């Protein structure tokens, strides 16, 4: 059996895939997230106990291990069912897309239903379980199986009364499977005090996995814990998982840490003015953004703008909506001039709408994780994160958010969370638990005054960039989102129609002042004109005076010349005593002339 086990190319191939962890080789299960958690899957060639209460997913886990092993790793497997008939099993897993009938036809899987009915069985002495060994052995040999599942072998205890013998036989069975090199999954029902009702963990000592299905506040959460993994490092933390149409998915969330690279790249917020407020370029790629605000402050609109901008860049965006349906978001976004329809059509935008109470916090996280992995978005929107946080207690919720943010940051995914703050309470206090995880915190606030409500936008913080400290009025209209400077003036900080009023009042006042000034100017000009006229008149008068005087003087000079000519004529006519008379006359004339001069 051993020789057969280790031969064959399929085995070699799968061994290559197996991640060595020390000396122990492992067999990949193909269960989403489990192989990462265990660094390679289950211990190869050894039995693993998977235990848990009813409905915890034991059988599904085992079946996935087998089916995925057969399909993905070409390791045929045997499913020994002690509970469900093979037809039932086939029907149950058909919804997960597992075609057991087809796999059985291809000799990749054998399902053997072992039925034990106590009422049909009479025990009459010494016996052993060789029949079971032979059956299993035959099934294994018929397809060269490498994997086996025993689900749930404890049913034997219900069918057979000799417990001591059963225990001995089970021990022998597990040993025998180990000898055959079978990677085995043995499921067991959880007991009251022990991990399993019949204490199977005593016999399976290599690896024990506990599945749990807990209900808190009416919401159930599935968790997986590795109780024991001999020879391998493993986390002992509980790991949430969920079951959907592709089977079990779990997140190895414990492996993420604060080791992500911080990007220098900036991406637009979708609102040009907001980009300018954030150091002129928008958010950092891969950063976490919190948009908090009361009801109706426009958080989702901001988110829609961001989604739209991201899609315009041709990048994928994943939108987790916990309050509205996809069509509602599309309609609402359209009302503010953002058409997300084409983004959805081009598969750049995907919505996931669900009620927060639909499942537990951990499950939400797991689902988000899986969707992010599937869709590979460059931006994730959670709208609103508060609803999500309300379903768990604060500590749990905080832890979950840290994991989510860490995970998204590791991927370099920009994440935008909206947060509904309760009316009345201090916004800073409400979001304190969340905000410290965020790189950028934008606060939207209803500002009420003058009988109306207006939206104000603040950038409370934005790590790594110079950001505006100003309040902006956040206006939603059919044309889109606009950020407008609020009115800050002597009348205080005003927004909305008050701002408009105030602004127009200011404009009117300014106009009036302008008119007043103009009027004064005109007046002044008029006055100046008058004065100029007066000056001109005076100048004219001066000129007049001067002209008058000049003409007088000219007349006077003329007269003197005539007089002189006359006297000369007289003295010439008198003759004799001309010289004496001349001298006397000269003095008189000089006197007269002087008086005229004085006049001038």
């Amino acid at each position, binding site marked *: 059996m051993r020789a057969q086990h280790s031969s064959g190319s399929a085995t070699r191939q799968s061994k290559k895939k197996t991640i060595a962890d020390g000396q122990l080789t492992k067999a990949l299960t193909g269960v989403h997230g489990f192989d990462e958690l265990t660094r390679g899957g289950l211990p190869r060639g050894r039995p693993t106990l998977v235990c848990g209460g009813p409905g915890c997913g034991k059988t599904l886990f085992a079946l996935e291990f087998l089916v995925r092993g057969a399909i993905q790793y070409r390791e045929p497997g045997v499913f020994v069912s002690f509970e469900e008939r093979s037809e039932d099993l086939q029907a149950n897993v058909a919804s997960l897309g597992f075609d057991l009938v087809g796999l059985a036809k291809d000799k990749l899987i054998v399902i*053997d239903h072992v039925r034990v009915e106590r009422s049909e069985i009479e025990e009459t002495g010494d016996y052993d379980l060789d*029949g079971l060994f032979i059956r299993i052995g035959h099934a294994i040999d018929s397809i060269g199986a490498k994997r086996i599942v025993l689900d749930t072998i404890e049913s034997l205890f219900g069918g*057979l009364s000799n417990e001591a013998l059963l225990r001995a036989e089970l021990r022998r069975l597990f040993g025998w499977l180990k000898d055959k090199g079978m990677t085995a999954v043995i499921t067991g029902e959880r007991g009251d005090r022990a991990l399993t009702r019949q204490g199977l963990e005593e016999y399976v000592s290599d690896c024990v996995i506990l599945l749990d299905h807990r209900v808190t506040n009416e919401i159930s959460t599935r968790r997986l814990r590795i109780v024991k993994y001999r020879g391998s490092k493993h986390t002992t933390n509980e790991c949430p998982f969920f079951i959907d149409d592709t089977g079990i998915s779990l997140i190895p969330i414990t492996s993420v840490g604060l080791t992500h690279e911080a990007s220098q790249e900036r991406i637009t917020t979708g609102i040009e003015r907001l980009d300018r407020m954030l150091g002129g370029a928008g958010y950092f790629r891969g950063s976490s953004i919190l948009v908090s605000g009361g009801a109706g402050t426009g958080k989702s609109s901001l988110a829609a703008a961001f989604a739209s901008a991201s899609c315009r860049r041709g990048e994928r965006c994943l939108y987790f909506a916990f309050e509205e349906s996809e069509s509602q978001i599309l309609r609402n976004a359209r009302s503010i001039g953002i058409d997300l329809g084409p983004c959805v059509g081009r598969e750049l935008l995907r919505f996931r709408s669900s009620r927060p109470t639909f499942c537990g916090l951990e499950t939400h996280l797991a689902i988000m994780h899986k969707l992010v992995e599937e869709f590979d978005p460059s931006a994730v929107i959670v709208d609103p994160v508060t609803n999500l946080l309300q379903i768990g207690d604060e500590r749990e919720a905080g832890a979950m958010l840290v994991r989510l943010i860490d995970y998204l940051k590791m991927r370099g995914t920009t994440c935008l969370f909206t947060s509904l703050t309760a009316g009345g309470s201090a916004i800073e206090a409400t979001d304190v638990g969340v905000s410290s995880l965020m790189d950028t915190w934008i606060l939207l606030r209803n500002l009420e005054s003058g009988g109306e409500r207006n939206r104000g936008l603040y950038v409370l913080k934005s790590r790594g960039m110079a950001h505006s400290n100003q309040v902006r009025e956040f206006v939603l209209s059919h044309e889109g989102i606009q950020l407008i400077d609020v009115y800050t003036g002597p009348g205080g900080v005003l927004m909305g129609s008050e701002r408009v009023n105030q602004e127009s009042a200011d404009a009117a006042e300014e106009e009036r002042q302008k008119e007043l000034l103009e009027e004064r100017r005109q007046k002044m000009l008029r006055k100046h004109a008058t004065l100029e006229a007066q000056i001109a008149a005076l100048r004219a008068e001066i000129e007049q005076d001067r002209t008058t005087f000049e003409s007088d003087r000219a007349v006077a000079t003329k007269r003197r010349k005539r007089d002189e000519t006359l006297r000369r004529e007289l003295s010439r006519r008198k003759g004799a005593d001309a010289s004496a008379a001349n001298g006397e006359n000269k003095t008189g004339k000089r006197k007269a002339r002087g008086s005229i001069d004085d006049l001038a």
Partner: protein
Amino acid sequence: MTSRNGRKKDSSSKESTPKVEWDLRLYVAGQSRKSLTALANLKKLCEEYLAGKYRIEVVDLLQTPQLAAGDQILAIPTLVRKLPAPMKKIIGDLSNEERALVGLDLRPAKEKQG
């Protein structure tokens, strides 16, 4: 009337009397002590209570393991009462005769005979 006992499925059983009321099949695994004890006990029992009305078929699962699933065999040895209906299963080496008789519903049968 002779019974046909065999280690293997007896092909000649069809030729035996059509009046076979008891069709028994004993599953064993090789020649183990338990198997041999069981067969011996079974023969003794049949001769004592069902003389002439029974047929025993012994199936060695080591040689025909594919037959184990059909009758839902887990324990070895297992005696299956195919006839009369309903089918009954008796596991163990039949050393507890009392329980074996109860298991085979032989007490009422014996009374009817008597």
